[in-house]
């Protein structure tokens, strides 16, 4: 019996033999979980319990390539992680619970998580009792292969710490789980800094911005200072950006000059103008033009659809990318700049021969944080030579592309969650 179950386990898990670290890790990206029917808690409503577990699984999904889906229908052997409550001797488990106090839960490598229903488990933010969310995140960490970590601030500490106002998986917990499952990477459809101007109570005009990453119908706010996405992201595009296509956009362009401040989103052969003040797309702008409009109408000479685009404040031109070509559009003259379209390899030459995205870019992004232009394709990015680079190394070509690096080495933990967990 022991060997048989072990062989079953072998099918869904593999042991990572890396150096001295031997941990079990799932070898599938989408894991199914279920709160076992005979294992409901007697203290919280079933909906509360299921909601808390959905949130707990989502928190791990936000920092790892894993996705979790609740599955109440498949045969039990297809369920990767089973959760249940019990007291004393419970759910056929060999480890008896000790009653109220001390041991409140445990987890097994086969993916079983048991909670001692003699404990006073509470929903998040209820102050007293033991936060079921916090315990669930801890036990799921075990099932995913993490041991106890005695580091202050780690969710994998064995002893329960009364819940601070909120808890999140900190940097090192993220690295620990990513050590087992790898970091999150994937292609983005748009990356941009959204700029707003506000007046301080003293009447000063202040410019603020946030960085956003979009992938299909999801978006993340990236907190540059914290090197991570905002807690609780991703969010559905339709929730945060009203009026643009729910499955995402090809490009975001912010034309920002002394006399012009306009934000455009591009998708397919159309584009939208975004109303920053009201946080939604214009249906009709000041000149009475209705949106969405064909790209060829608003930017004559630029074919749709495009791969990506960005506005270059150095020469006040929008660079549209499509296939191997780049179209520089003179905003003031409202026409293509002379000599365009050109090859991307010609306008943005490789500094290191052969190290160039050549065609079909995903993103062209000017970052205010780095004061640099990045071209992204697949999971790599190329930074464009800046004026500061050329002051130090004059031999570098204008708009040259520096050797590529991986996106997830610069922007961390931009992870998908399962579509069923999006609304948690």
């Amino acid at each position, binding site marked *: *019996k*022991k060997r048989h179950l*072990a062989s079953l386990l072998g099918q869904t898990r593999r042991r990572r033999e890396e150096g*001295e*670290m*031997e941990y079990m890790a799932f070898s599938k990206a989408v894991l199914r979980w279920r709160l076992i029917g005979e294992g409901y808690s007697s203290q919280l409503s079933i909906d509360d319990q299921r909601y808390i577990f959905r949130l707990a699984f989502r928190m791990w999904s936000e920092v790892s390539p894993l996705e979790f889906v609740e599955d109440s229908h498949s045969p039990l052997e297809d369920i990767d992680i089973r959760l249940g409550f019990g*007291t004393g*001797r419970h759910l056929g*488990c*060999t*480890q008896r619970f*000790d*009653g*109220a*106090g*001390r*041991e*409140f*839960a*445990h*987890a*097994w*490598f086969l993916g079983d998580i048991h909670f001692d229903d003699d404990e006073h488990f509470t929903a998040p933010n*209820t102050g*007293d*009792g*033991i936060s079921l969310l916090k315990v669930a995140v*801890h*036990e799921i960490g*075990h099932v995913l292969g993490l*041991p*106890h*970590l*005695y*580091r*202050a601030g780690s969710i994998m500490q*064995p002893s*329960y710490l009364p819940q601070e106002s*909120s808890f999140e998986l900190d*940097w*090192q917990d993220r690295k*620990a789980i990513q050590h087992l499952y790898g970091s999150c990477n994937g292609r983005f459809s748009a990356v941009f800094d*959204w700029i*707003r101007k506000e007046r301080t109570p003293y009447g000063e005009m*202040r*410019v*603020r*911005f*946030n960085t956003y990453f979009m992938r299909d119908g999801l978006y993340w706010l990236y907190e*540059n*200072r914290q*090197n991570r996405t905002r807690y*609780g992201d991703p969010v559905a595009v339709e*929730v*945060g950006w009203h009026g643009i296509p729910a499955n995402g956009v090809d490009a975001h362009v912010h034309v920002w000059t002394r006399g012009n401040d306009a934000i455009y989103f591009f998708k397919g052969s159309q584009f939208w103008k975004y109303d920053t003040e009201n*946080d939604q797309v214009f249906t009709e702008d000041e000149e009475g033009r209705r949106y969405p409009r064909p790209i060829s109408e608003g930017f004559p000479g630029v074919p749709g659809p495009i791969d990506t685009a960005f506005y270059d404040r150095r020469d006040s031109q929008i660079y549209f990318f499509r296939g191997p070509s780049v179209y520089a559009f003179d905003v003031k003259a409202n026409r293509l700049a002379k000599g365009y379209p050109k090859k991307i390899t010609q306008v943005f030459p490789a500094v290191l021969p052969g190290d160039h995205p050549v065609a079909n870019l995903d993103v062209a992004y000017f970052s*205010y*944080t*780095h004061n640099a232009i990045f071209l992204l394709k697949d999971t790599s990015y190329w930074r464009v030579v800046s004026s500061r680079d050329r002051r130090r190394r004059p031999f570098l070509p204008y708009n040259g592309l520096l050797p590529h690096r991986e996106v997830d080495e610069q922007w961390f933990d931009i992870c998908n969650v399962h579509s069923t967990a999006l*609304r948690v």
Partner: protein
Amino acid sequence: EKLFHYRDRSDVVIPPSHQAELITDTDTAEDFLSKYGFITPVNWEDAQWDEEKLSEDFSSGDTMSLIQEGDSLSWSGNTKDPSENAQLITALKEFQRMIGLPVTGLFDDATKAAMNKPRCGVPDKEADSKTTAEHNTTTTGGEGSQLGNSTETDQEQVKDPEQKTAETRLVHTRSERLSR
């Protein structure tokens, strides 16, 4: 029974049989240290498999601590010969070191209180304890380097309308959003 209980059950008196046995002396402390692998690392994976053997032992109502050596089981019992004392002191020191208490090897009040805290039932030291220890040392290394330099225009710390709006929006769907 009372006709009404407080919904948060704070008025329900838990019968003593459902109260976890507190750790009050060195015997119960030794049970604790043995259960969580401080005396001998626990082969937690296999604990789940040896169901028949363990359930028999448990059904005897015996609360003695179990130490598994491979597939055979042996009992630590209550005999106190000096080597066991040394083992207990070593285990106590290891426990105190792990949770950041003064490493004295004495079963003092702070150690007792720490042992009685609510905690996870997974052992702290599993069979391959060497890696666990090393893992811990690796994970307690310094913080990740803060990448990305901030500029005057990067005012993210100040709540931006979008974030607030987004959170407000999401408050309707996920009330903890703000706390999260």
